C-alpha cells in the first residue's frame, strides 16, 4: 500500500529555496516587458479634505510623461473597490479607485502619473498641484460615535458602519449567579503588517485576443480574478492573474486594491504594459492595517474560578472605508472570545466605526489575536482577583479531552483538542518548578521577574463555504505526465509557507514516486484554473486534501489501466510503493512510467477508458480546524528604565499532524516575532489631525534578530478528524498564542507593585510610568 511516512513528517529542506537564495527568483518588481510604462501615485497629505482643483498641466508637460489621471478621468470608468464581507445593515461609503470630491485619509490616492520610467513618474507626481480645503478630521473611534463628532463620510450621516451582536446562553443568569464580576477595559492597538516586499503590480493588455494579464504581489490571485471584472471591462475568462514570487503578505495582500484595477485600466487605455511598485511609505499609509479594537469586558465568575459568562462591548476602528474583509474581522473576535474554555454564556456587541485613517483588515491572525489576548488577560485578572493560580484557573475551565468535538457558546464546533496535554507539555519543557523558584529568588532580591502563560485555540483552515464570503473550498489537480513525472497544481497561493515542498512530500508518499519527480505549480490563474488562495492558515489544511482527492482518483483510474495491462481483474491489483502489482504474483507489475505512457499514447486502453492520467478536485471542508497550544514566557523588567527582557520562551503548539516539522517550526517562530512586536513595541500612530507618524521603518519598529529570545519549542499532536491529512494549520499560531503570554508575564512581573493591567504595547516608557505611579516614585 501507500507508504505515507517516507517524506511526510520529515523536516525536509525546501524545493523553493535554490532560486530564492541565488537571487534568481522573479518578484513583481523584477518583471520587464517591452514598452512597459511606470505609474506613480500622488496621495493626499490631508486626512480629510475637499479637493477643489487639481492642476496637472505642468506634470503632463514633463518629458517622458505619458499621462496624468485624476478621479474625474477614471472613476466613472472603473468599478468601486470591493468589500466581500456580508454584514447586515452595513453602511458603506463609495470607494472609488482615486479620490473623488474628497480625500478621506492621509495617503488616499488623488492622481496617478504614467511615465516612461519610475524616476520621471515620481518627478511628475511632485509637479501636480492640488487645491485642498481641509475638513474636520475624525481620529478617535470612541469620540466618533459620541454626539457631535464630525463625520468621516458626511453622506452616511453617521460614523457607525455597523453594530454586530453575538449572544448565546443566559447571560443574565450567569451574572446573577456570579460570586464576583471582573471588569477591564482593554485596547488592542492598531498595527501595520509591513511585509518586506511592498505591494506592486504589472498589467499588460493584449488587444488581439482582448485578454489582460495582471501580475500582482498578492496572496489571492484567484479572488483578484473573480473581483477585478467588477472594476474593469474585462470578463473573468479573459483575465489572467499571476502572483509570481510574493515577498510576504500577513493579510496585507489578502485584498483587491485600487492600484491593481487602475494599472489594469491604464494598460488598456494607453496600449502599453503599466507597472506600479509601492514605496515603503505608501505601504505604511495605504496598505491595510490590522487590529485596533477598544473594549469593555466583564466576566462573571464563581468563587472557585469557574467562568459563567462574558459581557463585552467593543469599538472597532475600521478606518475610512472598507477593503475586502474589513467589517468581518472584528466579528471573528466575538466568535472565538470564549477561547479554550467552557463558558456557557456570552454577549458581545461590536461597533464598527469609520475614522479618517487607512482601512483595517486581516492582519496575521485577524480577529483571533484580539480575542485570545482578551480572554487570556481576563483569565489572569480573574486569577489575581480570586488569588488563584493562573494555571489552576485555566485547567478548571478547559473542556475535557473526551468532550470533543466541543460545541462553544458561539456555535463553533472545536474539532479535536487536548488542552491539558499541551499545557502540561509546556510546563514540562519550561521546567516549571525551577522557573517558579527563579521568580521567587528574583523577587526576594528585589527584581521584577514574571511568568506568563497563555493557552489558545484558533480558527484555521478557512473554511467551509457556508462561512466564507466567496467560497471556502479549494481546488487542486494532479497529473502524471507521459514521462511518469508528476505535476501538481494547487489553487492555494503560497508566498513563503513552503507548499511546493510540503505538497510534494504528500504526493511523493502517496504516489510512491521520487520526490524529485514532483513539481508543484501555483499562483497563475491560467495554470491553477481555480482556487481560493492562501490566508487564514488554509493552504495545507484545505489545499492539501484537494490534492489527496486527486491522488485517490488517479490511483483508482490507474488501477483499471494496470489491471488491463497485467491482464487481471481490478480486484486482483494492489498499489504498493509506486507500482501496481498483481496481488498473488508480485512479479507481475507496472510502474507509473509505463502506465503514463500507455494512458497518453492510448493505443492499448481498456474499453471506455478515458486517455490521460490527470484528476482535478474541489475539496469542501465541513468545518474549520482548531489548533491550540500553550506558550509560557518569563521576563525580567528593568525597574529603572522599564525595559523588558524575555528570559525564557516555551511554545507548545498542536497543529495536528505535521507534514514538515521544519516548516512548522519556521511558521511558529515567525508568528512569535510578530507577537513580540505587538506585545512590546509595535503600534501604528496617527496624530489628532490624522497624520500617520509611523510611515517608515524609521518609526515603526519590527522585531530584529537581537529581540528574539532562545526558544524551547515543542508540540503535541492531536490530529484533526476533519481532513484526510489530520492537519490543522499553523500560519497564525505564534501570533495568536504569544502576545497574551508575553503580556501576562510582564504583568506578573509588575504585579507585586500593585499594577493590575497595562495596555499594549508594553513599551519601556509605559512601564516606567506605571512603576512610578505605583511606587510613589517621582517620575523623572
Amino acid at each position, binding site marked *: 500500500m501507500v507508504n505515507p511516512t517516507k517524506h511526510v513528517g520529515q523536516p525536509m529542506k525546501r524545493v523553493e529555496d535554490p532560486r530564492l537564495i541565488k537571487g534568481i527568483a522573479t518578484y513583481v518588481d523584477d518583471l520587464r516587458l517591452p514598452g512597459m510604462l511606470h505609474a506613480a501615485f500622488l496621495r493626499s497629505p490631508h486626512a480629510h479634505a475637499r479637493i477643489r482643483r487639481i492642476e496637472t498641466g505642468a506634470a503632463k508637460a514633463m518629458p517622458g510623461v505619458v499621462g496624468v489621471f485624476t478621479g474625474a478621468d477614471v472613476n466613472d470608468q472603473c468599478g468601486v473597490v470591493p468589500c466581500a464581507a456580508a454584514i447586515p445593515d452595513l453602511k458603506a461609503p463609495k470607494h472609488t479607485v482615486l479620490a473623488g470630491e474628497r480625500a478621506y485619509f492621509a495617503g488616499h490616492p488623488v492622481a496617478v502619473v504614467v511615465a516612461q520610467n*519610475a524616476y520621471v513618474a515620481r518627478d511628475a507626481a511632485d509637479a501636480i498641484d492640488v487645491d485642498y480645503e481641509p475638513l474636520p478630521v475624525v481620529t478617535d473611534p470612541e469620540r466618533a460615535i459620541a454626539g457631535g463628532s464630525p463625520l468621516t463620510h458626511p453622506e452616511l450621516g453617521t460614523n457607525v458602519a455597523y453594530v454586530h451582536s453575538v449572544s448565546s446562553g443566559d447571560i443574565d443568569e450567569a451574572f446573577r449567579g456570579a460570586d464576583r464580576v471582573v471588569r477591564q477595559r482593554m485596547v488592542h492597538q492598531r498595527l501595520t503588517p509591513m511585509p518586506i516586499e511592498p505591494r506592486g503590480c504589472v498589467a499588460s493588455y493584449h488587444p488581439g485576443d482582448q485578454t489582460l494579464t495582471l501580475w500582482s504581489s498578492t496572496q489571492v490571485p484567484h479572488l483578484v480574478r473573480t473581483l477585478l471584472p467588477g472594476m474593469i471591462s474585462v470578463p473573468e475568462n479573459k483575465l489572467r492573474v499571476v502572483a509570481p514570487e510574493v515577498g510576504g503578505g500577513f493579510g496585507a495582500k489578502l485584498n483587491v486594491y485600487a492600484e491593481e484595477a487602475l494599472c489594469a485600466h491604464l494598460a488598456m487605455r494607453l496600449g502599453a504594459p503599466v507597472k506600479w511598485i509601492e*514605496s*515603503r511609505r505608501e505601504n505604511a499609509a495605504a496598505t491595510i492595517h490590522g487590529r485596533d479594537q477598544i473594549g469593555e469586558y466583564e466576566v462573571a465568575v464563581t468563587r472557585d474560578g469557574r467562568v459563567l459568562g462574558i459581557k463585552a462591548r467593543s469599538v472597532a476602528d475600521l478606518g475610512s472605508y472598507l477593503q475586502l474583509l474589513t467589517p468581518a474581522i472584528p466579528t471573528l473576535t466575538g466568535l472565538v472570545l470564549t477561547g479554550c474554555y467552557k463558558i456557557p454564556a456570552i454577549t458581545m456587541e461590536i461597533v464598527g466605526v469609520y475614522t479618517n485613517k487607512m482601512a483595517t483588515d486581516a492582519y496575521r491572525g485577524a480577529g483571533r489575536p484580539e480575542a485570545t489576548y482578551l480572554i487570556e488577560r481576563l483569565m489572569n485578572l480573574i486569577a489575581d482577583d480570586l488569588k488563584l493560580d493562573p494555571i489552576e484557573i485555566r485547567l478548571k475551565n478547559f473542556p475535557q479531552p473526551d468532550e470533543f468535538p466541543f460545541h462553544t457558546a458561539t456555535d463553533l464546533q472545536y474539532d479535536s483538542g487536548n488542552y491539558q496535554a499541551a499545557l502540561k507539555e509546556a510546563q514540562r519543557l519550561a521546567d516549571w518548578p525551577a522557573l517558579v523558584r527563579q521568580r521567587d529568588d528574583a523577587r526576594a532580591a528585589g527584581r521584577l521577574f514574571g511568568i506568563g502563560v497563555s493557552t489558545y485555540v484558533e480558527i484555521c483552515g478557512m473554511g467551509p463555504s457556508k462561512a466564507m464570503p466567496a467560497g471556502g473550498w479549494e481546488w487542486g489537480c494532479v497529473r502524471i505526465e507521459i514521462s511518469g513525472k508528476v505535476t501538481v497544481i494547487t489553487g492555494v497561493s503560497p508566498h513563503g509557507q513552503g507548499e511546493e515542498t510540503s505538497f510534494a512530500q504528500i504526493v511523493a508518499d502517496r504516489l510512491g514516486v521520487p520526490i524529485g519527480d514532483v513539481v508543484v505549480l501555483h499562483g497563475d490563474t491560467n495554470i491553477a484554473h481555480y482556487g481560493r488562495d492562501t490566508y487564514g492558515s488554509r493552504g495545507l489544511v484545505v489545499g492539501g486534501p484537494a490534492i489527496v482527492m486527486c491522488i485517490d482518483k488517479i490511483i483508482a483510474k490507474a488501477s483499471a489501466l494496470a489491471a488491463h495491462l497485467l491482464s487481471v481483474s481490478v480486484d486482483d491489483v494492489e498499489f504498493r510503493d509506486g507500482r501496481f502489482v498483481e496481488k498473488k504474483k508480485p512479479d507481475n507489475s507496472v510502474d507509473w512510467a509505463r502506465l503514463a505512457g500507455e494512458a497518453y499514447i492510448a493505443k492499448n486502453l481498456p474499453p471506455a477508458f478515458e486517455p490521460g492520467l490527470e484528476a482535478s478536485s474541489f475539496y469542501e471542508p465541513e468545518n474549520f480546524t482548531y489548533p491550540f497550544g500553550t506558550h509560557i514566557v518569563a521576563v525580567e523588567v528593568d525597574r529603572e*528604565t522599564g525595559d523588558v527582557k524575555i528570559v525564557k520562551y516555551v511554545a507548545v503548539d498542536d497543529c495536528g499532524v505535521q507534514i514538515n516539522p521544519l516548516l512548522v517550526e519556521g511558521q511558529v517562530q515567525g508568528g512569535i516575532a510578530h507577537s513580540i512586536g505587538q506585545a512590546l513595541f509595535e503600534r501604528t500612530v496617527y496624530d489628532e489631525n490624522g497624520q500617520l507618524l*509611523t510611515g517608515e521603518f524609521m*518609526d515603526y*519598529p519590527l522585531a530584529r534578530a537581537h529581540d528574539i529570545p532562545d526558544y524551547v519549542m515543542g508540540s503535541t499532536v492531536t490530529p484533526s478528524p476533519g481532513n484526510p491529512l489530520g492537519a490543522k494549520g499553523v500560519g497564525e499560531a505564534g501570533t495568536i498564542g504569544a502576545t497574551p503570554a508575553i503580556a501576562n508575564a510582564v504583568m506578573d512581573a509588575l504585579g507585586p507593585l500593585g499594577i493590575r493591567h497595562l495596555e499594549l504595547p508594553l513599551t519601556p516608557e509605559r512601564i*516606567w*510610568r506605571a512603576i512610578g505611579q505605583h511606587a510613589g516614585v517621582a517620575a523623572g
Partner: protein
Amino acid sequence: MIPATFSYARPTTIDEAIALLTKHGSGAKVLAGGHSLLPAMKLRLAQPEVLIDIGRIAGLNTIAERDGRVVIGTMATHAEIESSALVARACPLLGQVAARIGDAQVRNRGTIGGSLVHADPGADFPAAILALDAELRLASPRGSRSVKAAAFFEAMMQTVVQPDELLFEITVPKTATSAAYVKSEQKASGFAICGVAAIVDAQAKTVAVGVTGVASKPYRATAVEAALRGRALTPDAVAAAAALAANGVEPLGDIHASPEYRAHLAAVNTKRAILKAVAQG
C-alpha cells in the same frame, strides 16, 4: 525612493571642494557617507541643487596620532573608528560609541564628519566628542579654523559650519580607558533616545559627561560634573549627581519618548555610564 535631480561634483582636494561650495552657496550640500542625506533626499525632504561628493579627497579618512592627540579625518567611517587599534588604545570611548551607531552596513558607509555636521539630535558621536572636548577643524575660503565641540552645535540640526565651510578633521586628546557609553535606542531607527558618554579621569575624581538624544542639541551635563568634582565616585554619590543630568535642558518629546522619559533616562544612563567607566578604571 527616488531623489530629485541635482548636479554632482567630485573634487579631489579640499581646496577644490571649498571652491565648489563657495560657487554654489546654500544650494549645495556636501555628500560624505550619505547616510543622513540620501534617505532625506529619497523622501524629498532634502532637494539640494548640487552635491559635492568628498569621498575621493585623499587623506580624509585617516586615523592617526599627532601632537599627542588622535586625529580623525571627516570621512573616517564608523566601522573604521570602531575597529581602529589606535582608537581602542588612545581613545576607546570613540570606538565604543561608533560600535553603537545604526547597524553594520550603516557603519560601513556612515562617516563621523557627516554625522556631526548633520547634527541629528539622536546621533551618537556628539555625546562622545563633547565629553572628549574634541576640536573640530573647518576649512573655508578664509583658511581653516578650530571649533571646540562645546561650541559646535547650535540647535537641532544646526552647527556653526557655514555654507562655504568643510569639516575636515576632528581631533581628540588621548584619554584613559575609563570611559563608557550607555544608550537607550529608538527601537525603529536605532537613533539615541538618550545616549550618555562618560569619561572618568585617572584618579576617578572628575568626570566628563556628554548627553545626546535628550534635547534638541547634545550637551555636557555640567551640573553632574560639578557635583562629582573632587568627590569619591561611590554608587550613591554618582546616583545623586546623575539625577541632575537633564538640569537646565528642555527635553524633546515625540512618539518614541516623552520629555519626562528622556529626562529620566538621562539620569539613569548617566549613572550607569559613570559607574561603568569607574569599573573599567
